[in-house]
């Protein structure tokens, strides 16, 4: 049967067909839908972990017991999981283990665009790179087979354009007759004391040599000879762009991007007059080809930053005199005629909005974190000074209060969401208390991992498979870490929020404020509840624009004849959160009865 699947759906399908029984992940764009789709296969135990390190450790434990496992994360998630990954390379596996890294060239939804092909070389593990959804499915299975054959974790690297593009995939059945998992003692292989690790390291090196030899004959590394005046080595989505732009040029399409097939590359180079590498981000392939003494070019004219596209490839080659009959324009907004921008915004009724409004008014220096609430940086809320990686807000605040004046210390506030706090904020808060940093931490507990599309987390009360689960008691957890001043506030009550912030910011000790209203997008029955809607009384509205300072998508400025203008609240968007009404000094906003 044929279906149109995204790369992520195809990876989930591939894992199912290959007999995976355990799948773990922490949500992160563009990887999230892999686990969201894998739950349709009842044979797979799928779970969200609090972070990527834990996800890999769980997958590893299942693999050691003999199960085929998949673990998925976005590119920066591999930074978090790098610690287990590098030593898992030494221990090897028992059941096949595939680690999906979903990279985000162009930073469509990320804080950097690191090229995780470097991790495969660094950790000395093989890496496959699919070029469409069909390959996503097939390579997932191949990854698990290679994993078992060579006793190694295997990385499967996608990019946003692979994960989120859809193409036609032929479905197959699930394999049968895989070994039944059981505890097996194999301590010397799995206890990485120096004596044991010293035995393992040479095996890792030998494994990569064997794989490099095998790479020359693997079907996923494919020489396609067409016109030989020019040859291009490429992989992943870039292969598709190259075929689009240069349909007659010869290509060496690499499916295994680590280790590289040296003889195959030499053969290809000898068959073409001019050799190029077309790859996004770092010159990973190009540098290795150069190290073989082969003349090749790529990053001397192709961009190092951002994703490639047919137009960008065409323009770069045109600039060195190849092709170039078609003009090229950059993708998306930058090329648009002058129009107002349309940046993303917090939803109408978002419980974060009032908190950032208040932080702005109190002139707080906000160390921020990763989530929807990073949008608190944008005007008109404009209340964020730092945002670097998951959990960094708390450490950033601790560092700032170490060095600034007593007066400025009071302004420092860390803001972090529930899921990000569980991911890597807890240790930061432990440090803040332990080292007695007088800062305030706001935990925006909306019960969900919202930005990636509402995934459950340890505060939701549900697992990925929608089973009821324990909810972490955040105030109790903070208390156990030693925070003496923990208070829970209603973020829709501006006076209460302001009062709590003023008091806690003034306190010369660590304090935590927890906001306890759920994300407005949670669809589970009874979690989010709409209030009576707000409306503007046009007779009373003086056009002072105070309510517009919230940046709520439901509130709109309407110029009026003779008057300077009035605010209007769109009843189709208002959730009745009531925050704007509290701001109006003229009682011009009323709640419906």
């Amino acid at each position, binding site marked *: 049967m044929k279906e149109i699947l995204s790369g992520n759906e195809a990876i989930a399908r591939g894992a199912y067909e290959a007999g995976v029984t355990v799948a773990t992940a922490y949500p992160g764009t563009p990887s999230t839908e892999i686990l969201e789709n894998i739950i349709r296969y009842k044979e797979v135990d799928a779970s969200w972990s609090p972070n990527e390190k834990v996800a890999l450790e769980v997958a590893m434990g299942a693999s050691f017991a003999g199960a085929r496992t998949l673990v998925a994360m976005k590119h920066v998630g591999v930074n978090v999981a790098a610690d287990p990954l590098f030593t898992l390379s030494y221990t090897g596996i028992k059941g096949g283990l595939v680690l999906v890294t979903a990279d985000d060239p162009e930073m*469509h939804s990320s804080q950097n665009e690191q090229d995780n092909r470097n991790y495969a070389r660094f950790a000395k593990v093989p890496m496959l790179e699919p070029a469409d959804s069909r390959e996503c499915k097939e390579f997932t299975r191949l990854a698990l087979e290679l994993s078992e054959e060579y006793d190694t974790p295997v990385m499967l690297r996608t990019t946003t354009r692979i994960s989120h593009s859809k193409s036609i995939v032929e479905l197959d059945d699930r394999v049968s007759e895989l070994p039944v998992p059981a505890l097996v003692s194999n301590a010397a292989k799995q206890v990485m004391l120096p004596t044991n690790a010293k035995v393992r390291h040479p095996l890792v090196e030998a494994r990569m040599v064997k794989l490099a030899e095998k790479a020359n004959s693997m079907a996923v590394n494919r020489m396609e000879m067409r016109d030989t005046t020019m040859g291009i080595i490429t992989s992943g989505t870039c292969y598709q762009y190259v075929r689009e732009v240069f349909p007659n040029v010869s290509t060496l399409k690499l499916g295994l991007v680590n280790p590289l097939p040296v003889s195959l590359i030499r053969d290809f180079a000898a068959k073409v007059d001019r050799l190029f590498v077309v790859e996004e981000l770092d010159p990973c392939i190009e540098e290795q080809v150069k190290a073989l003494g082969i003349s090749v070019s790529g990053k001397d004219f192709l961009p190092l930053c951002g994703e490639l596209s047919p137009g960008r490839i065409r323009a770069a080659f045109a600039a060195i005199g190849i092709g170039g009959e078609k003009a090229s324009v950059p993708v998306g907004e930058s090329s648009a005629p002058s129009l107002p921008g349309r940046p993303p915004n917090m939803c109408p009724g978002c419980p974060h909005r009032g908190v950032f409004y208040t932080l702005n008014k109190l002139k707080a220096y906000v160390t921020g974190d990763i989530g929807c609430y990073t949008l608190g940086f944008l005007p008109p809320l404009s209340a964020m000074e730092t945002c670097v990686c998951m959990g960094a807000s708390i450490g950033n605040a601790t560092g700032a209060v170490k060095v600034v004046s007593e007066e400025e210390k009071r302004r420092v506030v860390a803001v972090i969401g529930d899921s990000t706090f569980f991911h890597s904020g807890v240790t930061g808060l432990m440090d803040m208390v332990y080292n007695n940093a007088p800062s305030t931490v706001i935990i925006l507990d909306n019960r969900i991992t919202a930005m990636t599309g509402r995934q459950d987390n340890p505060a939701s009360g549900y697992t990925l498979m929608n089973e009821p689960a324990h909810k972490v008691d955040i105030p109790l957890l903070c208390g156990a870490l030693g925070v003496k001043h923990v208070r829970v506030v209603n973020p829709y009550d501006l006076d209460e929020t302001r009062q709590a912030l003023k008091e806690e910011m003034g306190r010369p000790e660590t304090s935590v404020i927890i906001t306890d209203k759920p994300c407005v997008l949670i669809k589970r029955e009874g979690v989010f509840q709409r209030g009576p809607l707000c409306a503007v009384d046009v007779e009373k509205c003086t056009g002072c624009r105070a309510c517009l300072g919230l940046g709520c998508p439901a509130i709109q400025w309407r110029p009026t004849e003779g008057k300077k203008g009035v605010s209007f609240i769109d009843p189709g968007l208002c959730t009745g959160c009531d925050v704007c009404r509290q701001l109006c000094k003229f009682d011009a906003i009323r709640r419906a009865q």
Partner: protein
Amino acid sequence: MSDKVTNLLLVGVGGQGILLASEILSETFMLAGFDVKKSEIHGMSQRGGSVVSHVRYGREVFSPIVPEGEGDILFGFELMETCRYLPLLKPGGTVVANDLRIPPPSVLMGKENYPEGLADRISSEFPDFLLVDGQKLAMEAGNPRTANTALLGAVSRRLDVAEDYWLQALERMVPRKALEVNRKAFLLGRGL
């Protein structure tokens, strides 16, 4: 089947249902026996930002994104977003746009005005331009939530795929209880 690949771009505002519309298009082309690829960005764009989805079909499709300046049809769900992505269209390309204005944050806050004369701007550059009142057609069909389906109907007339495949795709992608009203909206749009 010729080697020609047809390029569609669906543009609008996050939350307008663009992804579902592009799924229905892709399903239709697959049913009609074509190779299909589609691509879009999830994540930040869901929060009311600008959204673009690429759909390509033909005998064999390589790139999942439409090469810049080679779009055949721009399918706009909102006027300003339609204008924003005109540069992706080839000269002489077709524009089918919903006559709907969704103010962006700067306009909501009264800092800028929603641009005037967008429809004229589009038709002067792309004479093959159809402006559709999606909301009106949806009301006519009997459900205000079928505007996207009506627009899809209008787009379908400009593509060489038999009506039957469109209706089959709708049947597969739309929940059963909403099927009849969506079919009606589709045919109203297709009649334009």
